[in-house]
């Protein structure tokens, strides 16, 4: 039996790499500390393979033929995609993949009721993988990565309960279908509140963000699912805040547990609430 060795979630936004220095010192310190903690947690947990679950940002399929979840099966995941380079301003990176793990997990969950794809070629990665990779120096940890890109914004969007159920299926697949002794980590990448391309593009809903983090720290997943619905996320920033569904997938995989907040910062210039958590797996 493989084991879930680590469960984390963190925001991604181009501002963290593209214009990090627009933020006040204290916010930069908070965010730097959070991603340093993520880097250290990957090392300390002796994680072999890290699943990074994150919004696809309409980058890998037509909007009229859009999968709910897409597993990246490439031998190496490289990024960022060319179009995003001037925006993200991160160095080109290459993360080792884990094609066998990705293929096994895809096979286990493809009948879960959602549209689930697996892609052998390198996927187009924007801030979803590039920001955590750069900010938490994932290449420096040596961990292999399986990207799981997700539909958080193209209606019909799999809602909080669908994502939680997918996470449960994923957790079962990790524990039952992967090689003995393999240590598998989970990183939900997305959120917090933001509204890319909408009239509230410049706004962050700090009240929602802090409420969400407090709810997760308390660890009552049924309450999270009852109150932090897809509709509630949309109210806090349409087409962006629901990237928190990636955190919900992680919660489904590990079951009801409290987590620790690694920090939160609301900087208008980043155009996205930035926070991170680590769940207690003990």
């Amino acid at each position, binding site marked *: 039996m493989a084991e879930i060795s680590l469960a984390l979630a963190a925001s991604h936004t181009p501002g963290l790499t593209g214009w990090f220095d627009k933020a006040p010192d204290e916010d930069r310190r908070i965010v730097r500390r959070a991603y340093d903690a993520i880097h250290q947690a990957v090392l300390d947990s002796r994680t072999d393979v890290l699943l990074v679950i994150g919004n696809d940002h309409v*980058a890998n399929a037509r909007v009229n033929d859009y999968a709910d979840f897409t597993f990246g099966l490439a031998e190496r995941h490289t990024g960022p995609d060319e179009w995003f380079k001037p925006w993200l301003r991160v160095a080109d990176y290459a993360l080792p993949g884990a094609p066998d793990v990705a293929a096994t997990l895809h096979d286990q969950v493809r009948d879960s009721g959602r549209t689930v794809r697996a892609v052998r070629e390198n996927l187009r990665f924007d801030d979803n993988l590039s920001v955590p990779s750069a900010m938490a120096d994932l290449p420096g940890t040596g961990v292999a990565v399986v990207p799981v890109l997700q539909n958080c914004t193209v209606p019909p*969007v799999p809602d909080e309960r669908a994502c939680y159920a997918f996470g449960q299926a994923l957790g079962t697949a990790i524990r039952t279908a992967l090689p003995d002794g393999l240590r598998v980590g989970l990183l939900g990448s997305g959120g917090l509140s933001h509204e890319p391309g909408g009239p509230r*593009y410049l706004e962050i809903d700090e009240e929602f963000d802090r409420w969400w983090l407090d709810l997760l720290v308390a660890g009552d997943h049924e309450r999270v699912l009852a109150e932090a619905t897809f509709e509630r996320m949309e109210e806090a920033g*349409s*087409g962006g805040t629901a990237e928190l569904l990636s955190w919900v997938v992680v919660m489904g995989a590990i079951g009801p547990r409290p987590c620790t907040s690694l920090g939160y910062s609301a900087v208008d210039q*980043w155009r996205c609430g930035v926070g991170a958590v680590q769940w207690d797996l003990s």
Partner: protein
Amino acid sequence: MALDRFNPLLRTNDLVQDLKWDRDLRARFEADEAQVLADYPLSDEERTAIRERDFRRLHELGLHPYLLSQLARLIHGTGEKAGTSQAATELIRSLLGDQYESYMAERGE
């Protein structure tokens, strides 16, 4: 105003993706936008809205908001100025219409 107007069959969605994915098409768009719009299977309504930078109209026709933000970047560039890039502000100016000035004043920007 959210995802409620989204139309997965609106061809402008495909055009914005192609502009992001195809460097040559992007270069042609920058050099001769009218020709690219004429060649792409869009409705006249879509062509007019793109030509007039009418982001609100494109939203109403069903362009996905994220792709709308990317179209604004294609047109207005990626430069960042104190966190409110021209692409973002031009997009909001179009979306908010008459309310833009008072909204920005209220935000102190």
